[in-house]
Each structure stands twice: as C-alpha cells, then as structure tokens.
C-alpha cells in the first residue's frame, strides 16, 4: 500500500493489526461507494435512453420514424425531455392532500432504484489499489426476495399518489393498480419458486452461477412455464400494455398520475422504466443465465455485455408487445390472473418439486 502512511499518522493508531483492518474497511467503503455511484449513473442513463428507444421502436413498428429533430436521429431527445420536465411548473391541486401528494412519487421511485442494489451486472470483480470493485452493490443471500419486496412497495407510491390527488380518474387508476399488482405479484412470486427449487439458492449471483456453461443449462428450458408466467406478470406489474389499465388513457386520462406535472410526473415516469429494467434483469438472471454466454466458446465477450444484451432483449420485447396488443378489459385481467396464471404457477411448483425430488436421488 503506497498511500497507507499518509492517512495513518504515527502515534494515533499504533497497533498494526487494527491498522490493517481499518484500511480494509475504508477500501471496502470506497469500493462500495464507487460501485453505487456507477450503478446509479448507468441506470439513470439507461432509463433516459429507454424512453428514446421505446419511441423509436414504436415508431418503426408503426411505419414512422420516431423522434428525429433534437440531435442526429433525435439522439438528444431524452435530454430535451428532461430539461422540459424539470423546468415545467409544479402544480399541486388545491383539494389535494399536499404532504402525501408530494411524497408519493418518491415512494414510487426509490424502491425501483433500490432494487438495483442486488442486481448482479457481471461476473468478475476487479481490484484497483486495494479497492475491490464488484459488478453488483450487494450479493444478498435473499436477493430475489428483496426485489419482490421492493417492487410491492412501489405500488404504494401509485396508490397514495392516486388517493392524494383527490381526483376521480386518479383514484380509479390507483384502485386498479392496487388490485392488479396484488394479483400479478402473487403469480410472479410463485413462478420464481420453480427456479429457486432447481438452483437451491435465493442469491441472484448463485442462481446465475448454477446456470453456467452453455445455454442448455439455462432455466428457461426446464422452467418454460414459469418463464412465460413471470414475463406476463412482469408486464402486468410494471403497468405496461396490454395491462396498462391503471393509466388507461382512453378511460382515465392518465390514471393515477393525472394530476401530476413537471418534476413529480417525471419521477413516476422514471419509476415505471426503472421497474421495467428490474423485471427484465430478473427475467434474465432467473431464466436466461444472466451474464453467462450462450456457448462456452463465446466467453471472450465480457459478461456485462451478455447481461445487457439479454436485458435489452426483454426491454425490446416489452416495446414489441406494446406495439402489438390492445389493452385487456378489466374482468379479463382479473380472470386471467386468478383463474389461469395462479393455478398454472402452482402446478408448475408441484411438478418441479416432485421432479427435483426424484432426480436428486
């Protein structure tokens, strides 16, 4: 360590062992902070350009060009949108519950960003001057539970925002959202269990390690039913078409954020796209092997690239679905969730459990 002497003056800490431990702590702290800032920066940039990507993909699928004016091929459009949203007037309706109205978008966004703390983006940690940088913020041994828990908290932001706006469209959107998230979070959680049985761990890093060595090890093949169920309930959880009933613009103006404008509106917007990335990342990790290359011989491409490729495939799939399918009716949504998705996911758990039990013998 070159820099050690500068920090620990002689006489203040004279025990060499304590000195060494203190340095490890500080290095860990610096490493964690750098990774956190990096992940936050990358995630926020990804969200900004996701809006651009969505408009482009939707435009191309509808024989249009999408945004073209700001910058070459409209590449600076997210920046212009951000400046516009931040500089817009912040309106709070006079009959709104002001405190809750203010805090609701934050409740929606913070869990969505927090969930990135357990997402592993890559494989290899690398060291720099004693500071170890991991490609994830934390490898929690109940990572998947953390993500499920945080994504349910996000629903409170929607619910509170809709209620505090004191508008009939908002409250209807919020109620729909609450019912929808409860129904589909259940099936999402149930579909995950099959993968947990196979991998024997809830840590996202361990689940990915269990799928190493070629695409035939990925859990999409033994868990194809769970994969489809997870994808459908993921789309429903993020309130995307064809499950965008909470913000159905033809019925509810904009649903739960009808009364929001400017900065607070953009927080809801960010939360929606952050949730999309979370759902895509989880689907990638659980079913497509995360950072693992499809063939062992393709290992020379960095794991981060593989991870992002798969995540963007899912994000593209979300846009693709949005360009293709119309919105479900509300009774169809509920019937599909409770009478089809839930029994099928239960059946999947039972079959996977029995198969895993006998195959282990």
């Amino acid at each position, binding site marked *: 360590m070159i820099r050690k002497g500068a920090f620990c003056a002689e006489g203040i800490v004279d025990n060499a062992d304590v000195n060494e431990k203190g340095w490890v702590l500080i290095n860990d702290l610096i490493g964690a902070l750098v990774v956190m800032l990096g992940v936050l920066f990358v995630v926020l940039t990804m969200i900004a350009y996701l809006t651009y990507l969505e408009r482009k993909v939707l435009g191309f*699928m*509808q024989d*249009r*060009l999408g945004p*073209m004016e700001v910058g070459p091929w409209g590449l600076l459009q997210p920046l212009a949108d951000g400046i516009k949203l931040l500089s817009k007037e912040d309106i709070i309706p006079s009959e709104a519950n002001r405190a809750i109205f203010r805090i609701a978008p934050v409740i929606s966004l913070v869990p969505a960003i927090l969930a990135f703390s357990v997402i592993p983006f890559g494989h290899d940690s690398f060291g720099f001057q004693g500071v170890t940088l991991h490609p994830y913020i934390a490898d929690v041994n109940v990572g998947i539970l953390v993500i499920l828990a945080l994504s349910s908290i996000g629903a409170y932001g929607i619910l509170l925002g809709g209620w505090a706006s004191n508008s009939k469209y908002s409250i209807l959107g919020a109620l729909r959202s609450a019912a929808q998230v409860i129904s589909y979070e259940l099936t999402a959680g149930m579909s995950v269990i099959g993968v947990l049985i196979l991998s024997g761990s809830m840590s996202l890093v361990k689940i990915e390690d269990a799928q190493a060595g070629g695409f035939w090890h990925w859990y999409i093949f033994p868990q194809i039913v769970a994969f489809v169920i997870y994808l459908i309930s993921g789309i429903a959880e993020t309130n995307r078409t064809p499950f965008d009933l909470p913000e159905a613009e033809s019925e509810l103006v904009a649903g739960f954020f009808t009364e929001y404008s400017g900065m607070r509106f953009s927080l809801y917007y960010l939360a929606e796209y952050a949730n999309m990335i979370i759902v895509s990342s989880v689907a990638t990790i659980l079913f497509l092997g995360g950072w693992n290359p499809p063939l062992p011989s393709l290992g020379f491409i960095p794991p981060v690239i593989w991870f992002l490729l798969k995540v963007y495939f899912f994000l593209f799939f979300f846009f693709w*679905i949005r*360009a*293709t*399918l119309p919105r479900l009716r509300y009774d169809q949504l509920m019937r599909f969730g409770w009478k089809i998705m839930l029994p099928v996911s239960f059946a999947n758990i039972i079959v996977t459990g029995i198969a895993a039990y006998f195959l282990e013998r």
Partner: protein
Amino acid sequence: MLKKFLNTILFSEIGQGLKLTFRHMFLRKITVQYPKEKLVLADGYRGFIVHRRYDNGVERCVGCDLCEAICPAKAIRVVSDIHPEVPDRRYAKEYTLDFTRCVFCGYCVVACPVNALSMTKEFAHSSFTRDGLIYSKEQMLALGDRSENDSDAYLKVRNMWDAEDSGKDEGRYHFPPITLGG
C-alpha cells in the same frame, strides 16, 4: 379441439401479431421530414391563387366580377372601373382575396374569361394577423410573377390553357373552351 387448445397455450394469435409488427419495423417509413424534404407537387395542385400578366407586363384582369360571383366562400371582392388611361377598357380598381376564407376550390380560375387567375404550388403562407392573409391585387401579381411557370402549368394541366392566347395584350376577351361549355 386439440389444435385449438394448442393454439391457446402457445399464444399463436399473439405470435401472429408479433410477427406482423416485427415485419413492419423493416418496411419503408412513410414519414416526410417536412422542412428538410418536400414532396413534389403535381401541376394541378391548388395552392395560392395569383394574378397573371400579359407578356408586356399589363395585368390581364378586366374586372368582370365573374370570380366574385362564383366564389362559394365569398372570399373575393372586386371593384371594377374604367381604365383611367386606356379608353374602352375596364380593370379592377380594387381586388382583394381573403385567404382566410378561401377554400382553394379553383372555381374563380375556371370562371375567369381572360385567364387572369391561376393557382400555384405555394401553400406555406402564414401570418400573425388576419389582415396579413387578405391579399391585394398587387400582392397577388407579385406572387404570380414569382411563380409564373407554376401558374402556367396549372392552366395547362387543368385544360384551361387557351392555345390562341398569344400572350399579347390585345384588349379583348378570350373565352377558353371550358368556360364556353365545350
């Protein structure tokens, strides 16, 4: 029965839709990036109405009021008078065309016995005031001088071009065949 069940669990209808939207991603886009690229307008395009001149620069309009009479939107107002210098000749002392009322139907061009009116390919005229779109005869003449080829082409393609019209100011009424009904 089995086929229907398989179609349901394999989402085959959704698959069809996805295939369609995916194919459309690679088709030619129909967007025209308007200020940067413009469509080629046909010769018969009914754009802004202009006044035309004879080859020697004398305006063709004789103030006959036929365009005012036929205008379905009542956008044209003509005040005709005897020409102060040339005896035996009438002209439009005042001629205003209100482009906020004009429906660009082209009837006035058909009605004109001396081919004094024609239409151009200009369409991007805008103004911050209503008065700015009420064009006087002088403005319409200036517009006509600017887009002479377009106004000639309009009359030709709309079959109103008078082949006997030499372009010389002969002080007489030319009735194009379409005006005479054959």
